[in-house]
């Protein structure tokens, strides 16, 4: 199995430890990860999509042309990258492929035929690698730990264009987390979005935090989890960093560690937590120590 890792911007810029976790955990699963030479921003919805749609699709096509030339599909963790790449591909293969090739790619010696696709990393892990193979790669387990999952909304909707899970009752990330041995309970606001993406937190931080608090309070009161499992750079950073800010503001008085799924997978596979889960605002040491007590 060979895949092209689409990095995007936030993951390598701000959480290179999560990037490390993705690379090394896939390696442990026997997946060959190649870098997409010359890839650029996806581009994010708040950028070219908000000013010039054709330009956004052309940039998407540029990224696809690189993957296609290397004969791989792209896998991506960032929800926003996933969504925009699926969106541009949808518009390309259904309508604009020829036009974008002629107007843009041909001018810079590139071409996209519509073959290469994008997969979200949870889709790839669940549907291509499979939970059995994940289980057999583990040296440690999350047994005895209670984890709730934050499914990235960008991997669910619009389901007609990019869905691989049930949009109103997603189970992929839950099953993946269960494969690590954790208990994954459900709670009232289970399916609520984190509120961290787009322009919300930037334009009205207080409201975005109030929105997140609804979800955090619900999980704290109903299931009191040991940690939150995400698989999107924005969910990761927002749920982790906003919690710290909310504690300082007196909005919450508890602390729930947040992990990217591949960080937990990598730790369970026996990789060094100092490399795969180094950066966090909300301390995660207790969860990591607990995992390392559970040898498989």
């Amino acid at each position: 199995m060979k895949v092209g890792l689409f990095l995007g911007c936030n993951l390598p810029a701000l959480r290179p430890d999560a990037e490390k976790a993705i690379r090394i955990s896939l390696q442990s699963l026997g997946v060959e990860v190649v870098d997409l030479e010359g890839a650029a921003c996806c581009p994010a919805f708040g950028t070219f999509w908000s000013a010039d749609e054709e330009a956004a699709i052309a940039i998407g096509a540029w990224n696809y042309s690189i993957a296609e030339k290397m004969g791989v599909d792209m896998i991506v963790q960032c929800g926003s990258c996933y969504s925009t790449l699926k969106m541009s591909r949808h518009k390309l293969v259904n309508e604009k492929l020829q036009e974008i090739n002629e107007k843009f790619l041909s001018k810079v010696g590139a071409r996209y035929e519509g073959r290469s696709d994008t997969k979200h990393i949870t889709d790839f892990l669940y549907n291509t690698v499979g939970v059995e193979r994940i289980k057999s790669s583990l040296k440690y387990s999350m047994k005895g730990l209670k984890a709730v999952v934050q499914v990235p909304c960008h991997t669910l909707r619009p389901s007609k264009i990019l869905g691989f899970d049930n949009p109103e009752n997603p189970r992929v990330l839950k099953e993946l987390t269960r494969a690590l041995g954790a208990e994954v309970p459900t709670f009232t606001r289970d399916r609520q979005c984190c509120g961290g993406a787009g322009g919300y937190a930037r334009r009205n931080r207080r409201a975005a935090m109030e929105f997140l608090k609804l979800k955090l309070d619900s999980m704290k009161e109903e299931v009191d989890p040991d940690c939150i499992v995400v698989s999107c750079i924005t969910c990761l950073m927002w749920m982790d960093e906003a919690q710290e800010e909310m504690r300082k503001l007196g909005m919450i008085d508890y602390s729930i560690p947040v992990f990217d799924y591949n960080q937990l997978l990598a730790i369970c596979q026996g990789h060094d937590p100092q490399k795969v889960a180094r950066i966090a605002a909300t301390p995660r040491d207790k969860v990591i120590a607990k995992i390392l007590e559970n040898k498989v």
Partner: protein
Amino acid sequence: MPINLNEERDPELIKQIVKVGGEDLLKCFQCGTCIADCPTGVADEPLSVKRLIYIAKLGLAEKLIEDETPWMCVTCTGCEERCPRDARPFEIILAIRRWQCMEDETYIPQALTEIYERGHTQNVVNPMREELDLPEIKTVATREELLERFRQLLRETKIVREHGYMFGIMEE
């Protein structure tokens, strides 16, 4: 901001929004499903696609140009998924943003110039890479020749052609 029906109306407004990607706007029958589950609902001034569509249909261009709520969108696309009319509210939000950028270039996000400059919204080469034994970044961030080709592609786009000076491109 209340809607004042006595304000000057621009019958072209709706056509302009449709032209930049809001073609399903006319399907909206104002049911409000799009705002029922919107994350911005807890804000003092929430983003209401339903209201924005109403403003566009009335042709209240002045009101629409002043409304910054489309930029608060979380892009979760809950509205897009659940709209019973398939009016694609999220696409309408993007279309309104595009229209605003056309009418008032101060709306054009700064991030576009960042992407033109370095291919990314920010510096993606984190100094911690070495300590983490991460391989070299191979995106346009470290490939000058590919970055130049990427910029060449962007110079073919309408937004960069029409606003070259924002991207540091001087007119010939």
